[in-house]
């Protein structure tokens, strides 16, 4: 069959071309290919060589655009990309879709039960806060570990940090309601999330592409989780109202069972949805980032204007600083998400300029915050909270500065977009390292206060 290599390559190219049309499903391409091969075989039987047989068969198949148009007319629903959760069974993939659904549901229940057990067994709200992430994220990591069939080496690279984190969070003698305990509770999820990313990448965490995939996944997960939460809230509200009308008090069941199990469980279901629809549905990301980038830029500009006119950055109070940290992190997430959604080959455009403006506004805000923080440290001395905040803001500053530099280079056509992407994905572990420092080093250094 070696002599038909070129023919097979031609058929492959043809498949690729036909598949690009959204109205023609993979099964239809199979059907058309069967036809094409039938036609080719008959031509070959009459003495034509591969090349001629292929050309005749293609010609007989007709103008592909016209055929696709006819397919589109018959299957207009396909132009709306649909989410197929359990794909039609094909010959080579027996029953795995259902198995995956079963695994996901089991893990979702597992995460729910773990949280429920955590709620039942500890009265200490500080300990619970610290452990909440540990109760949920391992289930997500297990899902990806299972799905990507990770190696033992990677499994160890996951289990050891998870276990280490569990030991640190539970055996450190944190002071009740102390600052370091609170900081650990806030920073542990960052570490856990990056560990989940390690599982997501199937251990190939050195690959920039896989890291970008994880960023994309994180954004889509946020979208899906929000949608599930909204739908769940509507269902719960209707149930609650109806049962109340009948005179049944549903609230204790809701509070004790439904929410503790459904809230973490929905995270796994959302993760699975993102995985399932990856190939099928156009991502929401390009739409969302195009809507929110200009809006966020407007918000930052308003904030900067208000801060500038409110008289001196140094007088900004503590709560406002925390709030602005949250805003900066949000901006950064939006930036990452929009970079992950961008077609890397597209030339620089208006939207990239808008993104640069967003980065510069964020830099200005960060600079203002850093001045305010340094002023506060000079005035009141240092504390775990202040140092943690200062560290985070310095990390953000570095991240944004380099991002701005690269964005300028890209806009001026001096750098490929890949350089922008690479900086973003390579910087991510820095946050994990810092979070680890805050969780592991801060408590003993500051005497567990």
């Amino acid at each position, binding site marked *: 069959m070696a002599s038909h290599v070129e023919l097979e390559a031609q058929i492959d190219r043809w498949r690729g071309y036909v598949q690009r049309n959204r109205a023609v499903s993979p*099964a*239809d391409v*199979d*059907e*058309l*290919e*069967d*036809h094409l*091969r*039938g*036609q080719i075989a008959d031509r070959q039987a009459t003495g034509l060589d591969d090349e001629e047989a292929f050309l005749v068969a293609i010609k*007989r*198949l*007709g*103008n*592909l655009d*016209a*055929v696709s148009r*006819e*397919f589109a*007319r*018959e*299957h207009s629903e396909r132009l709306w990309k649909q989410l197929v959760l359990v794909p039609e069974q*094909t*010959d080579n993939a027996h029953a795995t879709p259902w198995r995956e659904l079963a695994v996901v549901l089991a893990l979702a229940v597992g995460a729910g039960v773990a949280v429920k057990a955590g709620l039942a067994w500890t009265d200490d709200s500080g300990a619970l806060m610290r452990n909440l992430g540990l109760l949920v994220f391992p289930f997500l990591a297990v899902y990806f570990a299972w799905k990507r069939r990770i190696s033992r080496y990677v499994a160890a690279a996951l289990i050891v940090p998870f276990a280490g984190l569990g030991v640190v969070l539970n055996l450190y003698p944190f002071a009740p309601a102390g600052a370091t305990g609170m900081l650990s509770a806030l920073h542990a999820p960052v570490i856990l999330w990056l560990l989940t990313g390690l599982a997501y990448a199937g251990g190939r965490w050195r690959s920039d592409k896989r890291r970008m995939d994880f960023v994309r996944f994180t954004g889509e997960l946020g979208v899906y989780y929000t949608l599930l939460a909204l739908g769940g809230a509507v269902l719960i509200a209707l149930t609650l109202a109806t049962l109340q009308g009948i005179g049944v008090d549903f609230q204790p069941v809701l509070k004790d069972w439904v929410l503790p199990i459904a809230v973490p469980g929905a995270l796994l279901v959302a993760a699975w949805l993102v995985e399932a629809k990856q190939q099928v549905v156009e991502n929401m990301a390009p739409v969302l980032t195009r809507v929110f980038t200009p809006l966020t830029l407007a918000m930052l500009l308003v904030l900067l204007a208000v801060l500038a006119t409110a008289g001196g950055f140094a007088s900004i109070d503590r709560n406002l600083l925390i709030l602005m940290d949250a805003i900066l992190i949000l901006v950064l997430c939006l930036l990452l998400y929009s970079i992950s959604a961008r077609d890397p080959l597209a030339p620089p455009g208006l939207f990239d300029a808008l993104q640069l403006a967003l980065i510069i506004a964020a830099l200005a805000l960060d600079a203002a915050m850093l001045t305010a923080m340094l002023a506060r440290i000079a005035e009141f001395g240092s504390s775990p909270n202040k140092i943690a905040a200062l560290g985070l803001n310095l990390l953000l500053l570095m991240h944004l500065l380099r991002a701005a530099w690269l964005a300028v280079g890209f806009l001026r056509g001096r750098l490929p977009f890949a350089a922008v992407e690479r900086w973003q994905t390579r910087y991510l572990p820095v946050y994990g390292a810092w979070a680890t420092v805050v969780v592991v080093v801060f408590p003993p250094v500051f005497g567990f206060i």
Partner: protein
Amino acid sequence: MRIDKDLVAASATPLVLGILTEGDLYGYAILKRVSELSDGSMQWTDGMLYPLLHRLERLGYVSSLWGTSDAGRRRKHYAITPAGRDVLADRQQQWTVVADALRQVWQTAQGPGAAIEGWA
């Protein structure tokens, strides 16, 4: 002789359904049968057969099943359904009426030879 495009389109459904009453077939075999039946004068654009088959399937006139070809590839076979047979019977009556009318109009007055010249 090439058959007019509109005529091909109008006869496609009854032709496909009729061929399927002879037994289950896959797309390429259906086309070969069409060519055979018309002595090669009905040349369809091969690709157009499939949207047609899918439409007939959606309407419930045919059903499809994935099988395997001799070469071990996936191959989709079509079979006519009872609803398809009803439709075919209906179409047959319609075509008989049309063919009758044509025959009568061609045979009256001028005679067949003149009629064929006039229509060609």
